[in-house]
């Protein structure tokens, strides 16, 4: 990692995005103290993580699709062990309450090994809330979940943020997830921050939207009306024109096509998404400024 620096305010969700090998998981591992950074410092609640490890870790927690609980023992036994590790008061009551909230009450006697991916994620979320954390670090918590379970998990995370004013660091490959739940996104590439903004702010930095218009009329009139005025104009079919231009010029492009004496039949506008930002970085276009 190279000069990665960011802060997380109470009740906010910061997303870490980037291609494979960008350093997302390494960042999370450093944030929870299982990997040591070469330099710099990590501070929670004004305290240095490595000098005040116990005090910091008592107030944070972690949830990942890659880190599991002990496979051989039951869900209940796992949660009892973790409750003790966090010195949770009235642990059994807490486990039962959280278990009911996440719908895992019926799984308590099952060995962790026998659970489905979705069930494991919910048990992991219970584990992640046992100590009433103020910060939760989530490393691709929805990876390997089917879309329905992933959506439910995201809803749970959203409701947790609301009900507990949780601060969350969230890594994912799913751009729609990040757009949906994150207040701020940090793009990492080769261990460095290459972009940092709100999801909307980041997509605004990708200048171009794409508008595809189907029309009835003379294609030459359309071409003449558009060429030279917009970034990229192509006519892939006799009755279709595609204009790639800055997002704020899309209405103007549609207006100009209508004024070219043709009848507009269909309009399809594709605005830039976080995925476009991701692709731009992943394909080596570097910094999104």
């Amino acid at each position, binding site marked *: 990692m190279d000069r990665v620096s960011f802060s997380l305010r109470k009740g906010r969700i910061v997303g870490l995005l980037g291609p494979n090998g960008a350093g997302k998981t390494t960042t999370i591992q450093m944030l929870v103290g299982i990997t040591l950074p070469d330099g710099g410092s990590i501070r929670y609640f004004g305290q240095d993580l490595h000098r005040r490890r116990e005090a910091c870790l008592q107030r944070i927690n972690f949830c990942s699709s890659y880190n599991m609980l002990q496979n051989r023992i039951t869900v209940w036994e796992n949660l009892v*062990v973790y409750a003790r590790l966090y010195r949770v008061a009235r642990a059994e009551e807490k486990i039962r309450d959280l278990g009911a909230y996440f719908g895992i009450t019926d799984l308590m006697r099952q060995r962790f090994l026998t659970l489905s991916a979705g069930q494991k994620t919910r048990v992991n979320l219970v584990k992640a809330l046992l100590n009433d954390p103020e910060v939760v670090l989530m490393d691709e918590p929805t990876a390997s979940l089917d879309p329905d379970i992933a959506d439910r998990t995201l809803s749970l995370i959203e409701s947790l943020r609301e009900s507990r004013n949780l601060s969350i660091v969230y890594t994912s490959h799913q751009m729609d997830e990040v757009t949906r739940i994150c207040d701020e996104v940090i793009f990492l590439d080769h261990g460095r921050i290459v972009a940092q903004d709100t999801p909307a702010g980041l997509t605004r930095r990708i200048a171009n939207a794409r508008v595809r218009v189907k029309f009835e009329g003379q294609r030459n009139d359309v071409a003449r009306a558009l060429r030279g005025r917009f970034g990229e104009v192509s006519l892939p079919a006799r009755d279709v024109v595609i204009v790639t231009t800055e997002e704020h010029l899309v209405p103007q492009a549609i207006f100009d096509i209508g004024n070219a004496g043709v009848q507009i039949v269909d309009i399809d506008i594709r605005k830039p998404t976080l995925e476009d930002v991701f692709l731009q970085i992943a394909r080596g276009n570097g910094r999104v400024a």
Partner: protein
Amino acid sequence: MAVSLERISAVLLQELYITARSVEVMVDLPFWSLMTVIVFGFVTRFLATVMNPTVAQYLYLGTLLWEIIRITQYSMSLGALWNVWSHNFSNMFITPLSMAEYVVAQMLSAAVKAVLMFGVIVLIASVVFGLNLFDMGIGNIALGFVNLLWFAYSVGLFILGIIFRLGTRIQALAWGLVLVFQPLTAAYYPLSIMPPALQTVARAFPPTYVFEAARAGLSAPAINWADAGVALLENLAYFALSLWFFKYMYRRSRQTGQFARNEE
């Protein structure tokens, strides 16, 4: 950082759950020990009929005492691996649990297992096969137990350190490395039959003194305080060395990211 008894008890509780629910642990610990005491009991009974009975007992004595090392070292090293294999080990260190607390818990767990299993096999050896270890004196047994336990702690910590640093690809050491010490510590035969150079090497390991004292104790149950003292001092040195090595390897493992990668 303050040591928390509650966190130590959490690790012990997890050990109890894993032990109770794992066929592998039950086979590797009680089953293996029981088979060992029974098989070598019969071998000793047979050898006693064709050779000097005392000499035959040496083999049995070494076998029983070696179980203390095997059980303790197995428990120390495998305790971590059960969690690594479950992708749960690093999860535990994202809680306030410190590595010191974890190691203390593993040492306690290993000691409990060793006491229980050693007690059972000593009882079987005495009742079924007529070798009463108490003939060598309570003091000799207690000193020998402590010395073997402590030596196994050192070996266990050393192996854990290597696994943390190099990953689970060398996890076979958790079972195999301790066997290096079996021929070197004269577990089954008197030190005097080893070549002089190897005797010098053997005297560098605390179990050698324990096995020698145990054999001598069968005929004269007096404590050789000089040898016991040397063994304790060597154990102190080995434990300090293995603790330093373990801490170094653990720190390097976290610096290189290997500690987190061990579960990938």
